[in-house]
């Protein structure tokens, strides 16, 4: 799976002008886009999903064009077959857990999914351990459960790519460690490439096979972390090396206290 992104967009707001101009290619199972808030991470993810239309450029997955300004191609979001998990999950508040997961497999006329979809929904409920709460509404379940519902919902139609916007930001720190592991398992189980955006260095250390660092709307660095010096012989991430890399590019002064 090869994801090519080369986009350009200028935003005007009362607080000034922001230019997003990013160019990167991803062929890895888990990519982390890292950067401060306001560096253009979410905008890039939304452009990939089709929720933002760039002014110029091109987006392609495995050679299939999703957006090309020169050829005037914009595939609408609903036809891209990309899974998206919003930062606050955006679970439909009027639908139960099962209904949220089955949403993409139902229509407003046929409220019941067909047999094949029903099987898929049950499989997802099982894998994400949601059976006990399947008839609850989103506001009746915990943050971690909400996230699992959001991921399950996004995976129903077997997307070619799964995008997650700050997936751990809304969780408490202890839960984060566990859910990071779960995400790695999810990636392996469904064999779907994942792009995560984050400003948490721990996400980079634990998850990233590829790291893309955003700064002020530009790609500052695009680097593989699944090779030495960032991995040891057993393939485990080497924390100190990754930490140094992040500090270098993020411009954090050595000697200052680091939270990780």
């Amino acid at each position: 799976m090869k994801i090519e992104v080369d986009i350009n967009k200028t935003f005007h707001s009362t607080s000034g002008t922001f230019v997003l101009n990013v160019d990167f290619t991803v062929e890895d199972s888990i990519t982390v886009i890292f950067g401060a808030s306001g560096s253009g991470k979410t905008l890039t993810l939304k452009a990939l999903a089709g929720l933002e239309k760039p002014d110029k450029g091109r987006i392609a997955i495995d050679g299939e064009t999703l957006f090309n300004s020169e050829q005037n191609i914009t595939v609408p979001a609903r036809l891209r077959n990309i899974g998206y998990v919003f930062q606050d999950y955006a679970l439909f508040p009027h639908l139960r857990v099962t209904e949220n997961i089955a949403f993409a497999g139902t229509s407003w006329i046929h409220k019941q999914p067909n047999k094949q979809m029903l099987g898929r929904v049950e499989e997802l409920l099982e894998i994400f351990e949601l059976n006990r709460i399947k008839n609850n509404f989103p506001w009746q379940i915990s943050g971690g459960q909400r996230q699992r519902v959001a991921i399950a919902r996004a995976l129903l139609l077997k997307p070619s790519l799964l995008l997650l916007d700050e997936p751990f930001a809304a969780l408490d720190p202890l839960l984060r460690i566990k859910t990071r592991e779960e995400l790695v398992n999810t990636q392996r189980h469904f064999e779907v490439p994942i792009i995560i955006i984050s400003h948490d260095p721990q996400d980079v250390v634990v998850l990233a096979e590829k790291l893309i660092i955003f700064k002020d709307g530009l790609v500052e660095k695009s680097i593989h972390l699944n090779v030495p010096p960032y991995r040891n012989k057993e393939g485990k991430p080497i924390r100190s090396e990754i930490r140094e890399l992040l500090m270098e590019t993020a411009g954090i002064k050595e000697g200052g206290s680091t939270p990780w």
Partner: protein
Amino acid sequence: MLVIDHPIEGALIPLLLSLKVAFWATMLAGLSGIATGFIFSRRVFFLREFLDAVFTLPMVLPPTVIGYYLLVLIGRQGFLGGWLDENLGINLVFTWQGAVIAASVVSFPLVYKSARSAFEGVNIQYRQAAEILGKSEWAIFFSVSLPLAWRGILAGCLMAFARALGEFGATLMVAGSLPGRTQTVSVAIYEAVEMGKDNLANFLVLLTSVVCLVILIGSGQVLKSKYESGRN
């Protein structure tokens, strides 16, 4: 004691007529108000806020002004009324259908305004999430926007019903006060007072007050949100 002469002709028939007129007026205002509210919440177009003001006018204009406009429009000499009379032989003035039109114009802003703000109150992320999950505009409207906005819309429709039930000025000008045909409760009250039928007037006034109070309480209950994260 309230003793009413001819209770059926005096009270029951106007009441049933009022309910019929208010029902159809709410239907008309409901469908057009929901559609207009949705379009205005989703699209930015030329003169949008100007049109918004025009559509809200019936809420603040004197009913006589609306009645006058309607006569100009659907009266026998009116633009639309003349055409209807000539081509289809339809005359709306002094009919209960005319009363429906008058009442729906007056109650339209109540549906339109609440529908627009209810649709605008639905977090855009829900629609985006639905879009990414493969849904078309229509599917998103019926499976996301409408279910999340229905409380506001229903409250608006209840207000519209109450308003249509109480419509007096525009109705009188367009439909007149023909007992048994166009004489609604509010018009009947006016007639009863004029003719000194105090008992009938008292009864109809109390009845109208109670019905409207029940509707207002009902719409307040409807608006109480069930979802904590349903709107933000």
